[in-house]
């Protein structure tokens, strides 16, 4: 028997998130609309990684590759004169998916720490290629002349970009949930618990994992496309291994394998960063201490404290 799921809290949360720009405008704090958009974008990126780590059971340490390549696809297309988001965003998603297919197909031949290391190596490769390519702007990154045009919407308006991002995040979360509840999702759950048994039952283990990896990578590409628009820049930092680490930290903090783990982690970490930034230039010191505290005193992560389940 499936427990009856009521969507009421989620709808209320979505409505509250949707009303945020209006509230910020009313308070005269428009600056924070951009910050909130950044939070949502990272929530999408962390959610996509959580799908791979939490649902697929694969500890991938190279998610920045997909995140960053999405940003660069939009920036490169913009530089080539293609400004339509209807074209460039799906292409960013597709490029990240293709990249994930390639990297995943090779990496999934290994497991454990070797999988961690090989995904890290591929991401670093992409980082160095990007830095040394002059068409991609090298160390400085590639600035966007303006935001993508999503006719009839005007993304030049900060609130509109926020709502579009919120819509895409909500749609992704919904889609991933449907996926997790599907036969595919159930098979993934089985794989996570006992891969040899699933293989013995005739499930195609590696293709299933690869599909999961590609879906996560594709969504990270979309998040990257959004971030390029928000920042007005595709920067090589997006591809650096510390970015992969940061996304992984968000997932662990929010709760590995939890439906809203990625969102919670991104909001928490970026929120903490912003709040500390008001008081000190050394906010990362306190974030580091906070993370250590979580490791030592909340072994199941913060969500584990609240939920008593993983």
């Amino acid at each position, binding site marked *: 028997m499936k427990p009856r799921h009521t969507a009421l809290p989620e709808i209320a949360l979505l409505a509250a998130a949707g009303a945020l720009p209006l509230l910020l405008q009313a308070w005269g704090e428009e600056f924070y609309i951009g910050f909130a958009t950044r939070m949502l974008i990272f929530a999408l990126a962390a959610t996509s990684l959580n799908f791979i*780590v939490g649902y697929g059971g694969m*500890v991938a*340490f190279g998610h920045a590759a997909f995140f960053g390549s999405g940003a660069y696809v939009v920036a490169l297309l913009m530089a080539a004169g293609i400004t339509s988001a209807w074209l460039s965003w799906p292409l960013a998603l597709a490029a990240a998916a293709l990249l994930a297919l390639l990297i995943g197909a*090779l990496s999934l*031949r*290994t497991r*454990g*720490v*070797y999988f*961690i*290391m*090989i995904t*890290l*190596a*591929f991401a*670093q*490769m992409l980082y*160095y*290629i990007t*830095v*040394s*390519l*002059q*068409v991609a702007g090298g160390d400085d990154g590639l600035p966007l002349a303006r935001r993508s045009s999503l006719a009839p919407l005007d993304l030049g308006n900060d609130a509109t970009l926020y709502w579009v991002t919120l819509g895409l995040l909500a749609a992704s979360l919904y889609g991933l949930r449907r996926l997790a509840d599907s036969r595919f999702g159930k098979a993934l759950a089985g794989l996570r618990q006992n891969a040899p048994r699933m293989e013995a039952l005739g499930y195609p283990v590696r293709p299933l994992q690869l599909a999961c990896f590609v879906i996560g990578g594709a969504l990270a590409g979309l998040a990257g496309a959004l971030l390029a628009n928000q920042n007005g820049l595709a920067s090589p930092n997006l591809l650096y*291994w*510390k970015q992969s*680490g940061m996304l*992984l*930290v968000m997932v*662990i*903090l929010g709760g*590995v394998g939890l439906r809203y783990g990625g969102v919670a982690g991104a909001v928490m970490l970026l929120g903490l960063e912003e709040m500390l930034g008001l008081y000190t230039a*050394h906010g*990362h*010191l306190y*974030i*580091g*201490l*906070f*993370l*250590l505290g*979580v*490791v*030592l005193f909340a*072994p199941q992560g913060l969500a584990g404290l609240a939920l008593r389940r993983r």
Partner: protein
Amino acid sequence: MTQLILEQMLNGLQFGLMLFLLAAGLTLVFGIMDMINLSHGSLYMVGAYLGAALAQASGSFLLGLAGAMAGLALIGMLLEISLLRRLYQRDHLTQVLATFALILIANETVLLLWGPQPLLLNAPTALAGPVEILGFSYPAYRLLIIAVGLLVAALLYWLVSRTRTGMWVRAGAANRVMAEALGIDVRRLFTGIFALGAALCALAGVMLGPLLAVQVGMGENILILAFVVIVIGGIGSIRGALVGSLLVGLVDTLGRALLPTVLRAIASPEVAGHLGPALASIMIYLLMAAMLFWRPEGLFPARS
């Protein structure tokens, strides 16, 4: 051309040996305790800062080096006892989280103590000039680095393969549970290994200080290189770390120096100009990916 290749090979040897100092400690942590330690690069950074600060204060490079190594051995020991030993039994994700936190803490602490400006660390004045070898002149200080690296490699080799402690280390790397069952105190052994690893980080940081900038984040690139070395050499193997380090050092240095030239010979200058640097910088990652693909256990597998 021959001279260029020879000079670059010496540079590669020098870089590889310094990589080995980092990889040696890291591979034992990785191999014996199955722990991913991202903060190893931070030990290298802190070591370099400590050495630079001490050298500036005392006016002696040697004093700075000794102080940094002693200080880092202490820091490494304290870190292992207070925090890292709690992580051995936890999953890889938790280890990533905790040691990533250590990177953030180390970076900010260094910023607080020494500010955002890179520190200046001068090579000993006696070694500042070039010397004449093999018919061309080569910086004396780089030769010293090579000598120190070779010496440490030899010492480590002796320690690991000829002493009782080394036997314990090898036993621990091959099968930790079995080693413990045979009465080896792997925990205490490990505190020692970590202290030694940290001191070697400091050695590498101070030795490379005059060549590279002593600045925040300096450990983050080299950490990943050390991981590449370990995976290529075989996790947990000192011998693998040495061979892997030299391989990575040589391939990286020679690739950067020669690949653009080679490409220019076979492709148009424009293509070579674009492709050369990109290809050179990913050579070692290609090497690692190929290794993981065809021989995932590395060149010298340590685990039984």
